[in-house]
């Protein structure tokens, strides 16, 4: 089973864990992305996230389907937040349940690594002296 969401509302860790749990699962691996207060030594004030939503959901679906195909997992949840996020807030949450922990760990790492490469979502770092779209320029 797959649960994908892109929303401007704060993500709910506990309800995501609740959803991904199954009686057959022996472990749940959760990745929680958080907003860091600095990048390359420079103080970050906030991040702003933007998404091409229909395509982002489609790419997230491809990731989820690949996970279900490659690993013996039960459920996968991928939630991403958009809009303005302050330090310590959560832009992304991935939760995966499986009978045994090895599959949950591996699938979760694959999911976040691939999301960061393929899903059309962008973040802008806001500093005291300017703003930068992450990874846009070499």
């Amino acid at each position, binding site marked *: 089973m797959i649960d994908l969401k892109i929303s401007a509302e704060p993500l709910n860790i506990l309800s995501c864990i609740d959803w991904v749990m199954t009686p057959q699962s022996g472990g749940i691996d959760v990745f929680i*992305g958080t907003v860091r207060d600095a990048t390359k030594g420079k103080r970050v004030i906030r991040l702003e*996230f*933007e*998404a*091409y939503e*229909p*395509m*982002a959901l*489609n790419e997230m679906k491809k990731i989820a389907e690949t996970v279900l195909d490659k690993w013996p997992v039960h459920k996968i949840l991928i939630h*991403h937040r958009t809009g303005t996020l302050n330090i310590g807030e959560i*832009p*992304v949450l991935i939760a995966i349940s499986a009978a045994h922990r090895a599959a949950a760990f591996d699938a979760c790492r694959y999911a*976040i690594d691939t*999301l*960061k*490469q*393929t*899903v*059309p*979502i*962008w*973040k*802008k770092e806001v500093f005291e002296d300017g703003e930068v*779209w*992450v*990874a*846009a*320029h*070499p």
Partner: protein
Amino acid sequence: MTINILAFGITKEILGGASVGFQVGDEVTVELLQASLEQQYPRLQELTSFMIAVNGTYATSGTVIKPGDEVAIIPPVSGG
């Protein structure tokens, strides 16, 4: 034909809007579109790269764009 290009992230700033009309030939390939966009908007050349999505999927350079296709410019992604 005039196509509507959806622009995101830094490309929204470069193209001057979230949705911009762009004039192309009737049988334009993605490769040609990218070259035309770079010519019209030279700041695109400063980016690490950018991709084109057609109807919500990453397009290859040989993909032909048809009237009514949803075309988007996808600068380097940075989600998560």
